[in-house]
């Protein structure tokens, strides 16, 4: 079913820092064979949401929501045979665990984001309550979207833990924790937030990180403004409903004007009601923007990881240079760098030739280790850069495509809203003319 090789299995379940060979293997096996991407082989649906209760640690009733994941082989669906899909239930927290695992396991991939944990950027009529059915529904759609994104990713879709998430209800949690990713997750987080300075930052990655920051800032601003505008638009439409009520009352005391007023009133009611659909559609557009807002975090993480790798490379190179210098000093007897040992030996007498021999041997060993390690790290870095940059390009294309689609559908929405408005007011005008 998937492009499985022995090394794949090891890479996915075992180490967090993949060896360069393993990473290359991964990429060769998955990217070249798009046809084997999970997405094409399997139909994935987050079909339902349900509430469950459980007693928590302090013996209080806790309500949480579970989501039904249905999977079905893609060919079965296309053949028309209505086979029942396999299904299992997952909580939002389990999705989080899956995502954290992926983040740690594939640090060079821009991992798709989950829908928001808590409702943000809400305009006042929209509930900020996690239990609200609309919120749950939008989250269901967001979770399905997440799974589809992962399933269509050339690398992520091949992951065994991901596959198990979709197919193994019981025992999945144990499986994922056995990989030991938790520990790596903690250290990853620490590293991402640490402050360090790279001497020669890679221009491309620096620009990409900067772009990610800009995108995050502008989309946040846009979502904030949109929510406020939606609020106000809601008010404008709804007040028109009052016209409907008063026209109806007024028509009761009029003779010739009565009919025109009464029917105009109905159109005012329709106008006021139409804003609900309009804003619901817009909410979908806002969700699309939100996904990319959250994507910027993943993008940033990849750039930061690269920075970290570079920093460690620079540190390792630095360390090697220092050791080589020490070697030289020992060999030639000249002290170029200040060291306490050197000073004390000057003050308290030179060391014996045997001591120097021993030191030299140790240093040689260290230098050899250092050179091997540096070589490995360099290769690692190159592989990371290759993988990361390729995924960043993929992400860029995906972003451009998706957001262009979103903007088009936003324009279509606005046009539809205008057409509705034209119709309502044309009808109202006809009624007014009959007054």
């Amino acid at each position: 079913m998937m492009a499985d090789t022995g090394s794949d299995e090891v890479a996915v379940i075992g180490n967090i820092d993949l060896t360069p060979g393993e990473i290359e293997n991964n990429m060769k096996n998955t990217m070249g064979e798009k046809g084997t991407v999970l997405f094409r082989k399997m139909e994935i649906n987050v079909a339902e949401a349900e509430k469950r209760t459980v007693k928590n640690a302090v013996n209080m009733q806790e309500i949480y929501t579970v989501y039904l994941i249905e999977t079905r082989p893609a060919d079965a669906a296309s053949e028309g045979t209505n086979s029942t899909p396999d299904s299992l239930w997952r909580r939002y927290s389990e999705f989080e665990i899956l995502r954290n695992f992926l983040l740690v396991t594939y640090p060079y991939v821009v991992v798709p984001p989950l829908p928001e944990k808590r409702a943000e950027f809400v305009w006042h009529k929209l509930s900020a309550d996690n239990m609200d059915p609309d919120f749950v529904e939008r989250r269901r759609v967001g979770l399905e979207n997440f799974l589809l994104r992962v399933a269509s990713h050339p690398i992520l879709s091949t992951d065994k833990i991901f596959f198990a998430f979709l197919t193994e209800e019981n025992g999945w949690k144990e499986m994922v924790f056995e990989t030991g990713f938790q520990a790596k997750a903690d250290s990853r987080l620490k590293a991402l937030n640490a402050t360090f300075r790279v001497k020669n930052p890679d221009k491309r990655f620096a620009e990409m990180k900067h772009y990610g920051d800009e995108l995050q800032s502008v989309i946040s601003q846009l979502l904030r403004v949109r929510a406020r505008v939606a609020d106000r638009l809601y008010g404008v439409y709804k007040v028109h409903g009052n016209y409907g009520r008063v026209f109806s009352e007024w028509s009761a005391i009029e003779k010739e004007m009565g009919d025109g007023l009464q029917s105009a009133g109905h159109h005012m009611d329709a106008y006021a009601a139409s804003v609900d659909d309009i804003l619901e559609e817009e909410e979908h557009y806002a969700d699309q923007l939100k996904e990319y807002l959250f994507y910027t975090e993943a993008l940033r993480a990849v750039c930061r990881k690269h920075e970290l790798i570079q920093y460690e490379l620079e540190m390792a190179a630095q360390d090697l240079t220092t050791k080589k210098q020490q070697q030289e000093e020992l060999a030639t007897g000249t002290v170029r760098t200040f060291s306490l040992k050197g000073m004390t030996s000057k003050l308290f007498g030179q060391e014996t030739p045997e001591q120097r021999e021993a030191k030299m041997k140790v240093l040689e060993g260290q230098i050899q280790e250092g050179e091997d390690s540096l070589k490995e790290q360099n290769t690692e870095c190159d592989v990371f850069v290759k993988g990361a940059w390729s995924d960043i390009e993929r992400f860029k294309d995906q972003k451009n495509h998706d957001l262009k689609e979103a903007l088009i559908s936003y324009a279509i929405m606005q046009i539809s809203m205008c057409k509705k408005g034209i119709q309502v007011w044309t009808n109202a005008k006809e009624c007014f003319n009959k007054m």
Partner: protein
Amino acid sequence: MSGNVADSAVSPTTPAQTIPADLSGQMLELDEDDDLEVFSKDTTNTDGGSFNASMQTSPGSMINQYKFDEEEEEEDPGAKDLFITVDNPESHITTIETFITYRVVTKTTRSEFDSSEYEVRRRYQDFLWLRGRLEEAHPTLIVHPLPEKFVMKGMVERFNDDFIETRRRALHHFLNRIAEHPILSCNEDLKVFLSAQAWELASHKKQGPGFLSRMGETVRAVAASVRGVKNRPEEFNSIQEYVESFSQKMTSLDRITQRIVKEEREYLEEMKEYAPTYTLWSGSEEELAEPLKGVANCLDRCFQETEGQVRQLSDCLAPTLHEYVLSTDTLKAVLRRRDNMQAELEAKNEALAAKRADRDADPRERGVVWQSLLGKNPEEARQQRQQRLTGEIGELKEEIDKLEDRVEWANNALKGDWSRWQRSMRSDLKDAFVSTAQKNVDYYEKVRVTHLKPPQPHHTFDTRLVSITL
């Protein structure tokens, strides 16, 4: 139709209507001659010789006219011969105050005007004066309201351009309604208002019924209203009920419209940041830059058009609704005054009945004892009393006759004015709502079109959007 009226107007002594000569002076402040002249002039000016309601001014013709008015749907617009425009507001600054004057241009073919064209400048105070005079002269006619003195909403400054324009429009509307009114348009004060120079107007204002006579009117009115009317004709009851309801509806609609304006203004505030954010974003993008700029452009357009919408509501619909709110106050006052007149009549009738009863009563039951105590001859006393009462009864009867005519005239005039008011209410409000609806249609059309034309057409954009519009 017109033949009938012409006959009765030209010869006021025909059996159809008989109005004592002195009564016409009381009612209209115009000579009978003037009425006739006006009327006869009218027959030569009217197109097609059809009945022209706006020109009848003599009492006899008034009564007939109002009978016809109820059947008539519209007045002949071609017969209008008093055209007034109010425009060109200018601000005047003196050491004491700053005020606005409006240019009032009158074009007329009426003969009571010395010239056929006038151009004067008037300030709001002058309009207030004019309306006051019209109401005083014709307390039971419906005089169109003026825009309010102050704007209570707090946010509008007195000399703000929009406020001045709204006021100008209302003043224009006011004078035109007066000009269309058959009786009010012939008022002397109106003539002075339209034609006199500033200083002439000022000196004219100082004349007019004295303070005392006005006081007398007020006292009578208060006394009458305290008494209350007993037999109000049914049609006035239904008018009263209608006015109550209508007033509530207009107030509600006015308030709703103001609220929409407020909401739209707040919407505009938020929109200010919307387009610029998309423009900002387009700066970080390459492939997405054009579509993003397209959205920004549309939102900008949306913003501008919404400003237009707000203007339509606050400059056109809201002032019209407000005018009719004020109008209901006028209606209520007119109904009240008519009631007072009728109450006075009823009171007089009661007094008459009492006096008659007194006169015809058994003399033995009437204060003869007192008279004898005072040493008067009972027979003489009775005679004297009878004479006195008969005299008083006679006077009272005369007064009652006059009052009855006045009340009948007032009732008919009010009925005529009422149908005129209903017609203009219907027309004004219909126009205001239709133009508001049209403005909204235009708004959505303009915004829709902007979305179809992004600045840099992209293939995907075009085909998608074209397929949606088809």
